[in-house]
C-alpha cells in the first residue's frame, strides 16, 4: 500500500468541529512487520520519571537474589507481574551532601548536585533529555501528578521549576481539549491560529524592547520567559500540521471534573488510574516524549488506605519495624503497577508503549525515618527500545547513584560526557545496565 503523503492531508484547526474522513488503514504508515513507521523511522523513544515521596523501608525493599535470578521484595510484590519489564538497581548512594531531608536525595540523583536555597541548582534529568528528544512534539515535556499539588522536582534550570498538573480534568483539557485531533480527524483551517501566532510575535517584540533596559539577571529571566512563549508558538504550529499517524492514538474519554475524597482521604488509586490513562495516551499520540510524574510529593502527609496517620508522620513516628509504613508502600507500588500496566496495554507495532518508554522510578531517601541516602531506591522500567537490560536485580553496592542517571542519558541518546558536579559528578554509566 502506498504511504500517505502528509501534504495531501488538510490543514488543522483551532476550535473547529472535528470531522472524520475515510483514510487508508493506518498500517499504511508502517513498514511491513509493524515495528516502525513506513520509511523505517522507529517508534519514538520516550523517557519519564515516576516519583513518590518519603522513601522506603530498605530491608524490605531490596530484592533477594542478584542478576536474572531475583525475587521481588515484599514491598515490590505488587510489581511482580511486570518483572520482565523491570530492573531494580540497589546499593547505590547519593554522593552529594545530605543536608536537606527529602531534598538532597532527588536533587542528587536527578540533577547531580545538592539543592541550593530552596530548589535544584541545575536542570533535572527529564529536562536534559527533553533538550534532545522533546523538540518534535507539541509539548516539550509534561509534568503531572497524582497527589493534589503543584510542587515539582522538574527543573529546566535553577529557579526554573515546571509546576505539576495534578487535576485529571485540567490535564485532559490541555492535552485532548480544543485543538486536539486524533489520527484521521480533520478540521477546516482556522485563521485564528495564525492570528494567535501574530500575537505571540508582538509579545516577543515587546519583550525585546524591555530587554535592552534590563540588568543581567533580569535579562536571563526575561529570555526564559520568551523561550516559554516560543514554546506556545511551536504548539500552535503543531496544531496546523497533521497529527502523527500512530495506530494506538485515540481521543480518551474525559475524566470527571472532580475526584471526590473518601471520608477526608484522597482517592489515590482512582486518581492514579485516571492520570496513568491520560499520560499513556499522551505518549501514544506523540503529544510529548518526556514526562515527570509526581505520584506524591516529598514530605507528603497523605492519608493512605486505612492508615491511622499521614504518610510522612508515620515514617518518623511509627515505632518498631513500621508495619503501617510498609502497607502504605505496598499501596504506592500497586499504583505504580497501574501506571506501568497502562503503558504496557498500549500496542505499538509488535511491542508495547512500555517497551518504547524508559521510566526511572524513585523516591526522596532510602529509609524515610532517618533520611538516609545510601541504598538509594531505584527501579527502571520499560526501556527495551532504548537498549536497557531488564528482568534484573542489579546490585551495585557503594556505586554513585548518578551513574544510573548517566546511563539513562546515554540510552536516551543525549550526547553527554559527564553528569553532575562535585562528588555527584560521573563520566561513565553503571555497568550491566545497558544491553
Amino acid at each position, binding site marked *: 500500500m502506498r504511504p500517505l503523503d502528509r501534504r495531501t492531508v488538510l490543514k488543522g484547526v483551532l476550535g473547529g468541529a472535528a470531522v472524520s474522513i475515510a483514510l487508508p488503514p493506518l498500517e499504511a504508515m508502517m513498514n511491513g512487520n509493524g515495528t516502525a513507521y513506513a520509511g523505517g523511522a522507529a517508534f519514538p523513544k520516550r523517557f519519564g520519571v515516576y516519583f513518590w515521596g518519603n522513601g522506603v523501608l530498605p530491608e524490605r525493599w531490596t530484592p533477594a537474589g542478584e542478576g536474572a535470578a531475583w525475587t521481588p521484595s515484599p514491598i515490590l510484590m505488587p510489581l511482580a507481574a511486570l518483572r520482565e519489564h523491570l530492573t531494580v538497581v540497589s546499593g547505590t548512594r547519593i554522593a552529594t551532601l545530605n543536608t536537606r531531608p527529602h531534598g538532597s536525595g532527588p536533587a542528587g540523583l536527578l540533577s547531580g548536585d545538592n539543592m541550593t536555597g530552596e530548589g535544584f541548582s541545575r536542570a533535572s534529568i527529564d529536562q536534559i533529555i527533553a533538550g534532545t528528544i522533546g523538540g518534535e512534539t507539541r509539548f516539550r515535556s509534561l509534568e503531572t501528578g497524582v497527589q493534589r499539588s503543584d510542587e515539582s522536582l522538574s527543573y529546566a534550570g535553577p529557579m526554573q521549576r*515546571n509546576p505539576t498538573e495534578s487535576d485529571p480534568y485540567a490535564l485532559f483539557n490541555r492535552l485532548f481539549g480544543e485543538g486536539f485531533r486524533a489520527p484521521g480527524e480533520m478540521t477546516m483551517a482556522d485563521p485564528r491560529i495564525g*492570528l494567535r501566532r501574530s500575537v505571540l510575535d508582538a*509579545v516577543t517584540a515587546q*519583550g525585546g524592547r524591555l530587554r535592552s*533596559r534590563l540588568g543581567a539577571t533580569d*535579562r536571563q529571566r526575561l529570555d526564559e520567559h520568551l523561550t516559554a512563549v516560543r514554546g*506556545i508558538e511551536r504548539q500552535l504550529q503543531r496544531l496546523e500540521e497533521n497529527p502523527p499517524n500512530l495506530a494506538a492514538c485515540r481521543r480518551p474519554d474525559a475524566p470527571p471534573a472532580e475526584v471526590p475524597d473518601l471520608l477526608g482521604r484522597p482517592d489515590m488509586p482512582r486518581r492514579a488510574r485516571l492520570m496513568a490513562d491520560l499520560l499513556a495516551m499522551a505518549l501514544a499520540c506523540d503529544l510529548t516524549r518526556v514526562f515527570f510524574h509526581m505520584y506524591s510529593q516529598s514530605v507528603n502527609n497523605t492519608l493512605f488506605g486505612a492508615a491511622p496517620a499521614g504518610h510522612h508522620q508515620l515514617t*518518623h513516628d511509627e515505632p518498631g519495624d513500621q508495619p503501617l509504613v510498609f502497607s502504605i508502600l505496598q499501596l504506592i507500588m500497586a499504583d505504580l503497577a497501574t501506571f506501568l500496566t497502562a503503558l504496557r496495554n498500549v500496542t505499538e507495532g509488535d511491542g508495547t508503549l512500555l517497551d518504547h518508554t524508559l521510566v526511572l522510578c524513585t523516591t526522596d531517601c532510602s529509609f524515610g525515618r532517618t533520611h538516609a541516602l545510601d541504598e538509594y531506591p531505584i527501579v527502571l522500567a520499560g526501556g527495551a527500545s532504548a537498549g536497557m537490560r531488564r528482568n534484573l536485580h542489579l546490585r551495585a553496592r557503594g556505586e554513585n547513584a548518578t551513574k544510573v542517571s548517566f546511563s539513562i542519558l546515554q540510552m536516551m541518546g543525549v550526547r553527554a560526557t559527564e553528569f553532575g558536579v562535585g562528588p555527584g559528578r560521573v563520566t561513565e554509566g553503571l555497568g550491566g545496565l545497558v544491553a
Partner: protein
Amino acid sequence: MRSLTASMLLWVALAGCEGVTPPTPVDAAAPDDVPVAPYVPQAATLRRLTQSQYANTVHDLFGDAVVVPRALEPDTSREGSRAIGASEASLSPRGAEQYQDAAYAIAEQVLRDATRRAANVSCTPTGPDDAACAATVVRALGRRAWRRPLTDDEVNALVAVAMRAATTLTDFHRGLEYALATMLQAPDFLYRVELGADAAGERRFAGYELASRLSYFLWDGPPDDALLDAARDGALDTEAGLTREVDRLLAAPKARRGLRAFVTDWLQLANLDALSKDATVFPSFSADLGAAAREEVLRNAEAFTFDAEGDFRDFFTTRETFVNRRLAALYGVQFPRRDAPLTEFVRVTLPTAVPRRGFLGSVAFLALEAHPVSTSPTLRGKFIRQQLLCYNIPAPPVNVNTAIPEPSPSLRTLRQRLERHMSERSCRSCHITLDPVGLAFERFDGIGRFRLDDNGAALDLSGTLDGRAYSDEMQLYAALHDHPLLPECVVERLYRHAWANVETGEQRSEIVRLRTAFAASGYRLRTLLRDIATGPAFRRARAPEATDGGAP
C-alpha cells in the same frame, strides 16, 4: 537598649542548642541610639505579578465581575516570602500557556460584553480597519494595563495586531481582542517593571514606576487613574505629594487587599487551601473549614490595622474575632442565623470559659500546625519560633531515630512520649526549643477544638519562653505579646515583603528606623506601612550588575 536586651536574653536561653538560632538582630552590635552606617540599597529585580496581584490587576482594570482563570503559574516562596519568590523564579512553559489562555478569556469578556466594551472603547469605528479608533483604545487601555503611557512604537505594534485580526475576522472589536490579549501577555503587564533611573551611582524610583511600587505594596494591585495622574504631574516626586498619595491609598478599601497579601504570606495562610484532616477522627471537620479559618484571620487583621488601629501585639491576646457558622460551632459561640451562607462572617467575643485568644487560639494556627489525625507540638512550636519570632530552624540531622514511643500506661500524654523521644541528644538540642512551646496548646486538638485531656490523662501545659515562665496557653499568649522579638520580627517580614529582598547589615539603618517608629506608634501596623511607603529607602535600589548588551 531594648533589642540588645532581647538578643542577650536569647543567647542565654539557647545555650547548648547548636541548631536553632534566634534571629541575628541587625543591630546586635549596638543599641538603637548609636549612630548607624548609612543605608545601602539592594538590587531590585523584575517582580512577576503574584496570583493575587494578577487577579487584582484584572479586576481593577475591567471590573470585579470579570472571571479571572484560576489556573495560573503558582506563586513561589523564597526565604519565606512570595515577594522574593516573584523576583527570582522564572516562568515555566506551562505558565506561559496559562497566561495565554487567561489573556484570551479576559479579552473576550471585556470586548464582547456591551457595558465593558462601552467603558473601554470610546470611539465609534468606521469599519473593521479603523486604525485611528484602535489607536485611541490601545493608548487608553495600555496606560492602565502597563501602568505607564505607551510609546508610539508600542501603540503602532498593538494596532497592527488589531488591524490584522479585524481584517481577517471582519470585525473591529474582535480585532481589538487580539491587541488586548497581546497587552495581557506582554512582560510589561506580567511584571512590575520598576527599574529606576540612574542617580548618584544607584537607581531611584520616581513617577510611574514609583506609582506602581506604591500601589502593589499598599493595594496588592495596580495604580488607579488618580495615582497615574499624580505620577504624570510629578506630584509623587515631592514629599508632600507622595505623603498625600500614600495616605489616600491607605485610606482606600483596597488597602485591605494589600494587608491581606502580606498577612497571608507571613502567617502561611495559603496552606489552608490544602487543609486535610481525617474525618473519622475529627467528625466536625469539613472541607470548607480551611477557607473559613483563613478568612477569620484576615478579617481580624483588617479590623486591627484599619478599623481599631490597635496595638499589633493585641492580635495575639484578643477575645474579639470573626466567625462564620462553621467556626461559631467549633468555638462554641452563638451564630445569629442557622442557615447563613458560609461567606457570612460576624464579629463575636469569645467566651471567657475557654482559653482561646487571638491568632494562636484560631483554627488557622491550631489546625494547620498539626497532623491529619493529631496535634503536633513540634509544628506549633516551630511556627511560633520561625514565623512569629524569626528564629532560624535548621533541618533535622540525618541518621537519627525519630520514632515516638506508642502510648502506654507510663507514657500517656504526648508530652510524656515526646520527652522520651527527646532523650536523644541530637534531637533534644533543637526540639527543646520547639516542643515545649507547642505543648502549651495541647488543650486544642488537631483541628483546634477545645478539649480537657489527652488520652484521658491530665495535661501539663507549663513551660518557659525565652526566660519567661508560663503555666498554660493563656500565659503563653501574654508572654508572646510582650516578647521583644515579636514586633521586630514583623518589621523584618514586612521589609522582605516590600523590598523583595532579605535584609542584611547594610540595610540596618532602615530596619532600626522602622522598628523605632513602630514602637513609638504603639505598634500600629498602619503606621508601619506608611513609614515604609514614605521613607526614602523605598525609592532607592542598587544599580543592577552590568550587562554585556548582547542579543538574546
